[in-house]
């Protein structure tokens, strides 16, 4: 009996048709890969990508030049140079704010330690270049990132819903 069933299955291409039905079903299901450069996959809510420096709404930089992030950075990726503001003795002016993204380990400690939430981490994960110098992000580049991501969800300290 089993032999007869096997013969019928052999003659009617039963197993092949079964396999073909699976591939046909796959044809109409959503692909699990994405059309990457055109439709990039959105990063997770707490993704720690490239850093950004923020500004107040009046255009003033949030960073007060306290150098806490420089001191905290475990990879020593951050470099800050400041001088005293001659007009306002309570404030410092940030001359240089460099983050070497090749040194950075994206731990997020700079974001956590910042007392004024000046530095945040965006969800930008496409980072490539041809030279090492391209990866040293200066203050202007970081402020540009901040403008690009103003109003959007970014990684800041204590924004995790816990």
């Amino acid at each position: 009996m089993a032999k007869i069933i096997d013969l019928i299955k052999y003659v009617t291409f039963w197993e092949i048709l079964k396999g073909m039905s699976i591939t046909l079903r796959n044809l109409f299901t959503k692909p699990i890969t994405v059309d990457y450069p055109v439709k990039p996959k959105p990063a997770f809510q707490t993704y720690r990508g490239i850093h950004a420096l923020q500004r107040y709404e009046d255009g003033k930089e949030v960073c007060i030049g306290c150098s806490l992030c420089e001191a905290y950075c475990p990879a020593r990726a951050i470099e800050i140079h400041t001088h005293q503001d001659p007009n306002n003795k309570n404030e410092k002016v940030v001359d240089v704010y460099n983050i070497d993204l090749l040194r950075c380990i994206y731990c997020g400690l700079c974001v956590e330690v910042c007392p004024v939430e000046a530095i945040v981490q965006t969800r930008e994960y496409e980072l490539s270049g041809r030279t090492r110098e391209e990866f040293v992000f200066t203050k202007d580049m970081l402020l540009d990132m901040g403008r690009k991501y103003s109003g959007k969800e970014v990684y800041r300290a204590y924004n995790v819903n816990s």
Partner: protein
Amino acid sequence: MDLFSIIVLALKIFLVFGAVLTIMIWQTWAERKVIGHMQLRVGPSSDFLGPFGLLAPLADGIKLLTKEDIIPTKADRSVFVLAPLIGMATALAAWATIPFGPQFSIFGREIAMSISSLNIGVLFILALTSVGVYSIVLAGWASNSKYALLGGLRASAQIISYELAMGLSIIVVILMAGSLNLTDIVNAQGGHWYIFTIQGLVAAVIFLVTMVAETNRAPFDMAEAETELVAGFHTEYSGFRFALFFMAEYINMMIVSCMMVILFLGGWNLPFFVVTNPLLGVGIFVAKVFFFLFLFYWLRATLPRLRYNELMKIGWKVLIPITLVNILFTGVMVLLFNKG
């Protein structure tokens, strides 16, 4: 032959070859897209390649044309150059007899929808596909490479054994139609396709298996066998010589699909309904051919490659005995009822 018929003939040749080459080019795109989605991928991307990656074949063409054309030092130069040309020439020449639709009259003249309505159309196409095998065998031999030689050997053995079963399954149709002319075969079927009869169905299934084997497509792609033989018979080919093999394979796929439609599925006719409108007829014909092209991709996405001895076993021990019995059965049926 007057001027009018020469113009009509030139127009037919232009239209047929234009359509064939255009469809062949976008077949490569369609295959990638279909197989991609069947494997839950997206296939050709729309990044640089236009909507749905439709320009992918053009990018392929540019790449292949600008690639370095390498002829191995130890290769048999003249045969190496000749082999892809044989494949392409035979693949294109076979289109001369294939009818695409019902004949119609214009300016008081009857015009058949095939370049030439040969009386031995079936034989002509079978002969050309047989000669096409030489392109693979010669390519494998002339490359002077072990992988290519193995691919060529496999192709010769496989195609010879499967061509036998293919020819024998076509004999069933010839017995029922009483003609070797492809147009006559379609007209003899009318709305009652041969696939609706028992012997026709058996012959159609065997033809389906052998046509996949004949075109060296998965699961019968023993001659290429990427996983075992690098690229089989075209391992040493590059640039546009490789492209010629590639194009010949896709054009052959279209030819055997056309043969399938003409021999078993009533050509341009609907089931139980004869189509006389030429445009509608061509549309139906093309739709049927496209279904079989889709079937080729579908099989490739589904089935793994057969082992070589299994392939020969199926060819000689299963397909040929069944077709021989089928021919006998058809002969008896035709003798008793004088029809299929």
